[in-house]
């Protein structure tokens, strides 16, 4: 492959599945990774930023800048609930030593604006955590709406129940106001939500095969996933849902997904609906803009690709 399909800024809150998705990015020639921008979510901002630095160091890419992002949602304080799923260190309580790398100067939202405005039509944003940085960026400079190539987010639930609450997926629930801003901004937005991320399950057997590959990426994954796996087991899932890698896989090969376009309302409500994402399939609200919503996925081809990438990308 000569030209990468996407030059991306990866906005992330690592996070176990964020880390698995990072290694997919690293192993995929379709993607040129420009930077990681961090956000609170699966852990506090100190935790997720420290983990982002661990990721670029583990991948042998200390040249990829890590920009620290938002510490709190727009309108309230971070509730710290990520630890339940991702461990107190955000990496499945693996307690790895800190990276020797430091974050780059500057802050995520400002960096996102600068990079996108400097390269109109070229950069894709892939956001797999709460959407606070993206909301700050588009509020700082509405011009990024036209200048960004594409925005792909992991978050929301169009046709299935939520996970952080009966109504809401965790990333949207974590900062519903930011999500409202991002969903209404009018840029080319694809929502990779629970509808597809819970339809792709890496089983215990699949994970065992992955751990056995034995390169730095899969060794890292083998250390962080068991905690996350046990959380899923307690929820009655045999294996793990593949959340954040689904957004990356959409960037790599959108033909893996079935999509449908609709306006999606992000609820800010306080009676249990905070963070609910309601698609208006029949255009009854006559509202814009339309969002590209992922509704189906070829999970078998997805998982085969993931394993192939993690096998060969670090050979």
């Amino acid at each position: 492959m000569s030209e990468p399909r996407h030059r991306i800024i990866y906005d992330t809150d690592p996070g176990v599945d964020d880390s698995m998705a990072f290694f997919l990015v690293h192993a995929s020639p379709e993607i040129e990774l420009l930077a990681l921008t961090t956000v609170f979510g699966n852990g506090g901002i100190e935790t997720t930023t420290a983990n982002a630095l661990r990721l670029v160091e583990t991948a042998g890419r200390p040249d990829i800048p890590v920009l620290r992002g938002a510490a709190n949602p727009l309108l309230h304080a971070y509730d710290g609930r990520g630890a339940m799923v991702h461990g107190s260190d955000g990496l499945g309580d693996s307690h790895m030593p800190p990276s020797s790398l430091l974050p780059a100067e500057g802050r995520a939202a400002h960096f996102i604006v600068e990079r996108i405005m400097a390269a109109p039509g070229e950069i894709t944003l892939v956001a797999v955590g709460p959407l606070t940085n993206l909301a700050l960026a588009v509020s700082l400079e509405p011009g990024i709406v036209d200048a960004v190539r594409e925005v792909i987010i992991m978050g929301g639930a169009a046709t299935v129940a939520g996970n952080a609450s009966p109504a809401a997926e965790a990333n949207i629930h974590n900062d519903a106001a930011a999500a409202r801003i991002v969903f209404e901004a009018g840029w080319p937005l694809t929502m990779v939500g629970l509808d597809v991320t819970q339809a792709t399950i890496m089983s215990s057997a699949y994970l065992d095969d992955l751990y056995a590959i034995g390169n730095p990426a899969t060794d890292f994954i083998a250390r962080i996933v068991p905690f996350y796996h046990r959380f899923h087991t307690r929820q009655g899932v045999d294996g793990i849902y593949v959340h954040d890698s689904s957004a990356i896989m959409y960037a790599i090969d959108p033909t893996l997904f079935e999509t449908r376009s609709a306006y999606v309302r992000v609820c800010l409500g306080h009676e249990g609906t905070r963070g609910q994402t309601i698609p208006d399939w029949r255009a009854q609200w006559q509202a814009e803009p339309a969002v590209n919503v992922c509704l189906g996925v070829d999970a078998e081809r997805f998982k085969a690709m993931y394993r192939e990438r993690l096998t060969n990308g670090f050979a």
Partner: protein
Amino acid sequence: MTKVIIDCDPGHDDALAILLAGQHLDILGITTVAGNQTSDKVTANALKIVELMDRTDIPVFRGAQIPLLRKAIHAGHIHGDTGLDGPDFPAPVKEVEDRHAVDFIVQTLMAEDDVWLVPVGPLTNVALAIRQCPEIVSRMAGISLMGGSLTTGNSTATAEFNIWFDAEAARIVYDSGAPIKMCGLNLTQQANATDREIERIRNQGNRVGEVVVQLLEFYLDAGERVTGVRKAALHDPCAVAALIQPDLLEFEAMHVSVETRGELTYGMTVCDYRHLRGFGSSQVDRGPLRQEANVEVAMKIDASGFLDLLIDALGRY
């Protein structure tokens, strides 16, 4: 001299705030925010004002162009089509800086001690700065803002324009833990310009004063159309006066936050002054919903002292 960043949406009273500050405070920069008019218009107006006061050394930075979550609804009915109707300003020669207002606010507060933020427009820029770099909250000297009200609103029954324009941003700022001095409508409506003040300014006979006279005549006409009374509250200079001559104002500490969900009260600054009405003191007899004071709310202003200060400053140009 006290160092300030003036975050504004000029605006007639914004112009007066800048002119007042120019004589008594060290203005590190002027940042603009969409509010009274669009970002393009208020940014051009900020440039016109620094040219008028012959202070083109003050950098002007463009900030937020839209509220965080709501649609922008500007105040052309008060400030005219340009946002600064009245005088014929020449098209500004000075240019806006390349840097974003929020970046300037963050970098300045992180690099310099004892800087006050003086937001006299919607709080979008300040909210973005706080959410992008929360460390600024403990770095800054404080925030002296014009916005909200202890009592009645103007945009709605309960909401003052600056807060109502972007209530979510205001919520972020009020809840941030930053030390806040608030000059709300309850205060600024004690500080009115009338034809008498216009006459005093005219009699000082300077060029800047003559432009201010034209601004105030337009502003009073607009005020008269809206309220039926020929006077106009000098909102924004109050937040500046609070830093120049604090003894002109009386403050009460109380908890204040901003309503963002109310059906009738969107953008209301909810001020808990029960302790001033006999429902227990702020120290004792706390109800379960009583929260720590986070804002110094301006209650009274020595109006004649304030007008003397302002008119004197205008005469110095």
